[in-house]
């Protein structure tokens, strides 16, 4: 049972990583790519960690895996904001639908 749930969670996690990369390739500007990477990859990692945590040998080992998530989230949130601000400072204009 645990194996099944774990497999499911890991697959869902991998899907979100895939979606993040897909967004990076397909979205038109750095701001949109940021949305894709920041949100999809972090969710992917969350699912992977959860999938591995439920099959961990001890509670402490499971919590250790889960502890990684908030750290990476903190990093992603601050780095995303830093990238967006930098892009704005460089004068990169967001892509708009009307301009096509």
């Amino acid at each position, binding site marked *: 049972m645990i194996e099944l749930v774990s497999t499911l969670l890991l*697959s869902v996690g991998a899907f979100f990583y895939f979606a993040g990369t897909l967004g990076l390739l397909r979205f038109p500007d750095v701001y949109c790519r940021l949305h894709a990477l920041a949100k999809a990859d972090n969710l992917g990692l969350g699912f992977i960690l959860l999938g*591995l945590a439920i099959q961990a040998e001890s509670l402490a080992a499971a919590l250790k895996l889960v502890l990684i998530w908030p750290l990476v989230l903190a990093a992603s949130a601050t780095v995303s904001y830093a990238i967006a601000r930098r892009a704005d400072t460089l004068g990169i204009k967001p892509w708009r639908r009307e301009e096509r």
Partner: protein
Amino acid sequence: MTGLEFPLALFLLTNLVVALLAAVRGPTAADRMLLALLFGTTGVGILVLLASAGGGSALVDVALVLALLAAVTGVTFARRAWHAGEKSDD
């Protein structure tokens, strides 16, 4: 271990390489900064999967330290922006 960990680690690695090439291609300098994000999330994901695929729990420690360093870097960024932002705008 479900037997899926190693294939998924390889899948994430492929993702990382593809995304890396896309980010390096740009076109702007800000696009290349996306690499910092990629290494954080995908790198940590690969490490924990490999740990579970038989790499040993030491790899979880590596992932944890990587995440911790990324978080400290990020918070330092934010604090710097805070102090700079109170005075001027970049």
